């Protein structure tokens, strides 16, 4: 095949011009911790590599209009160092376990969302936090809710000429609301989630008024656990947690034939059984952690 061209645009406009020119023939490299491996091993071959990681407009974290705004090239380590981001416990907990120190210095939440794999820890955290992304192209910008962004395994609603300029997380007043993220891995370092859960919990006294629950690695995409959200509403947190521990939420879709993460694996059945038997526990524990956060804040 023809040679691959490598571009390192110096600003956002230049990047969007290139994207507009190459469209499907381009691959965006941000932190590169996932895509570079796929490019190197031949899984992804495009005419142009557009490297956006050093674009200044994409590197900031700010606040405005009721959102914390995280630039598209902000790294995991930037998140961990940010006083603005530390209010989102689920995000912090998701980010601090991703990959390894060398991954976290390069990898980006925007890249994690754009990759759209079911094990993406930021995907689950951002979904529970009700985040949205701002997609930019030469034609302009649009906001996409996270639930609408991820449409299939490794597929997003982004057009070929769009990139994630920023991620926005709505700021929710503290006191009665807190979030948490928990994942189960085969080992403690450099691994992806076997099952993960992010929960944003809002209390009414001791009772769970509202919970947003997102789950990772239990379907071909990150999913909201609406069934659990409904099940826990109006119950005390302790009761709710005990109840969901043993549940396999309806949104767990490991047996779906079109799940490419499982399709070809001879061990898929064993993996499914294990995931199904622990996902309730993971969600319950994440919920209890969020609950603990609220209680700690009240003291």
């Amino acid at each position, binding site marked *: 095949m023809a040679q691959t061209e490598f571009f390192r645009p110096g600003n956002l406009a230049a990047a969007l011009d290139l994207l507009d020119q190459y469209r499907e023939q381009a691959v965006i490299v941000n932190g590169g911790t996932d895509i570079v491996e796929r490019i190197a091993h031949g899984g992804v071959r495009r005419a142009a590599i557009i490297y956006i990681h050093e674009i200044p407009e994409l590197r900031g974290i700010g606040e405005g209009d009721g959102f914390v705004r995280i630039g598209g090239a902000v790294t995991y380590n930037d998140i961990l160092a940010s006083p603005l981001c530390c209010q989102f416990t689920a995000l912090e907990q998701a980010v601090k376990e991703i990959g*390894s120190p060398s991954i976290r210095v390069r990898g980006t939440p925007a890249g994690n969302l754009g990759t759209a794999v079911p094990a993406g820890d930021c995907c689950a955290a951002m979904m529970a936090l009700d985040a949205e992304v701002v997609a930019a192209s030469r034609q302009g910008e649009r906001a996409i809710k996270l639930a609408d962004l991820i449409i299939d395994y490794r597929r997003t609603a982004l057009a070929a000429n769009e990139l994630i300029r920023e991620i926005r997380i709505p700021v929710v007043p503290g006191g009665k609301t807190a979030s948490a993220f928990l994942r*189960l891995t*085969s*080992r*403690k*370092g*450099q*691994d*992806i989630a*076997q099952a993960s859960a992010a929960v944003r919990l809002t209390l009414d006294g001791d009772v769970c008024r509202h919970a947003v629950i997102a789950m990772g690695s239990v379907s071909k995409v990150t999913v909201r656990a609406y069934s659990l959200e409904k099940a826990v509403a109006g119950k005390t947190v302790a009761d709710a947690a005990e109840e969901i*521990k043993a549940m396999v939420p309806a949104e767990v879709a490991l047996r779906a034939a079109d799940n490419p993460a499982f399709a070809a*694996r*001879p*061990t898929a059945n*064993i*993996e499914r*059984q*294990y995931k199904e*038997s*622990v996902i309730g*526990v*993971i969600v319950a524990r994440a919920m209890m952690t969020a609950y603990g956060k609220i209680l700690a804040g009240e003291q």
Partner: protein
Amino acid sequence: MEKLDIVGQSKQRVDALVKVTGQAKYSADLRRPDMLIAKALFAKYPHAIIKSIDVSKAEKLDGVAAVMTAKDLPGRNGYGILVPDKPVIAERKTKYEGDPVAIVAAVNLDTAEKAIALIEVVYEPLHAYDDPREAMKDDAVKIHEQHPAAEKGNILCVLKLDRGDVDKAFAEADIVIENDYETPMVDHAYLEPDIAIAELDSTTGGLILTSAGQAVYATKRCLAPVFGLPQSKVRVVAPVIGGGFGGKEDSTLDVCAVAGVLALKTRRPVYFELTRAEVFRTTGKRHASYIKHRLAANRDGKIVAIDVQTILDKGAYVSMGGTKAPLHGVTMRTLVYAGGTYAIPNARARAYSVFTNHPYSCAFRGFGAPQVQFAVECQIDELAHRIGMDPVAVRTLNMLKDGDMTITGQIMKESRGLGLGECIQKVTQRIKWDQPIDHGKGPVRRGKGFGAFIYGTGIPLAFEGSSAFANLELDGTLNVAVSSTEMGQGIATTVAQLAAQTFGVKYESVDVVFSDTGRSPDSGPTVGSRSAVMVGNAVAEACRQLRSRLLEVAGKQFFQADPSTLTIKDGLVYVEGRPENAEKVATIAARAFVSQVPLSVIGTWFPPQPTFNSADGQGEPYHAYGFGAHAVEIEVDTETGVINVLRSVLACDVGKAINPAIVEGQMEGGAAQAVGYGLMEEPIMAAGVMQNTGFHNYMIPTTKDLPDLESVIVEHSNELGPYGAKGIGEPPLIAGAPAIRNAIYDAIGVKINIIPLTPRRVLEAIRQQAGQAR
């Protein structure tokens, strides 16, 4: 007694600086632009008849220098350390997915890969065997239609050990404990993939092979017939190696064979490197084992008999599995260690080595001992629980002591070092074994577990022994040459310390040449926890010869004194007690040089002849044994099955730590590998095809999975070892996995006899037990 000021010190490793600064040259660093790049087309089906191969399109591709199939080979199409049963290129049949079907050399990697893709092969797939218990059945398809060593069908060999009256002992015993155990195939997961560079030797007309291998002489001997060359025309060099763990005793043959025949064919240098996925799919693994272990004991805790059947997954080729003759291999070790480190008067053990369509099972740290001793250490724990005795007390009661006999009939001698008692005492003290542990109340429970081990130093074969070369330079420095390889374990440093101490120069005055058949005599392979002792003794012997020659000259020509009154220390020669009147070693060496005194010597050392009878398992396979005790504290998450190792305390009796930092390195490495072996490492095989062929899905522990690994060195001197040393390379791995398993039982009362103890397996066992209790 001689005061030791070099041996016993944690001297900075001779290779430390070049390695931490990235300057050390590994095999891949020696690649040059003039080299052709080799690639292999590996079998598409792990078990298949090859109907036809068409290489014509590949041959026509621009930049391809050679395409070879089995019919193009220059010599014997078969090699192996013990039995030459592995083809360089599969001819009629594929037996595992690592069999090359065709090989290519091209001007660059891209062209080589394209050429490989152009080769057309028609196969007739056969049923692929994953389980030796299935493959050993009478009606199984024979994987090797004709095998030079196989006994029957797919059964390569059955080895036996018989001692005492086992049936009577079982009939009379108070307690019989019978369990089935399974241990997995494991990849060595060395950091450096397999690489070979083959070049024509313009002087001899032979070949020079440069490869990350653990046994340069064995490589030469195994592969000379493949190349159709006399052994004298094959030179094998191993640069520094990025980890071997036993695997590179064999895998180096695979890559050297391919690179070598392509170099002979093209008359050009050839570079061949396996990708990581190819390393996983094609190179050797630890023998998976299926063990039926019966143990008989009296109510007082004394073990009276064992009856053990071990079925080993041999994979496709003999490799280091061993046969009845030649014997040396993993299979016989499963007999030797079937009773662990305990004195057991009656023993029966049977070991079946069975071909499957898996990667060939080869040497891997512990060589059969981690398999059977996993079973033994679980059995003895269960014995303790059954009779209400402390698990450590049962071990102490039964452990081999001075004068006791092993199940192979060998008498244990304190003079060769029997430090298990001290290891047990040190470990239990440190982990506070006698204090009850708080098991916890919530879903996460805690427990403590214990394991002990025995492991022989060296290779239990008639040829065991070493040669080393020492050359005194005229400036007083010393060159030592050994054929051992430096794969991170530190042998070059150990050898330098032994040489400096024995001869009497500063540590910094010794330089060590290693692993080059053109530059060093045969020190034997770097395997079997043998090098510090076997090679160390040969080096010490060479240095003693040099020392006495030098003292002879010094006595006669300088001091007019009896040489026995002289000493050499720090490069100075003087009358004992009078260092103020010293002469430099260099001065005396220069005089010796002009006095026809030879300053180049070969030192050799052979242990007492190892013996072992494959018909009854009796003999004295090793001159000395290392011992150890390993205790862990763990956490079990009963809702997810996740095990967290909180503490690991390992004590090893090493005879003498030549370099304590290096010994601790071996111990920490072994303890870490034990966590992987016990908790997570497992190739997933489906009809002979490995499913997890990358480090993202083949799990090995990271530092985050390990607690602070505590190591305690115990030294019960081996009268035949250099300065008392015994082997320490492999032993630290052995007892970790059973200790973890026993700790899970302590924490939650659930008995799991299959490793690795993955969260899935643990959770399943917990739920099964809860289900039965209901």
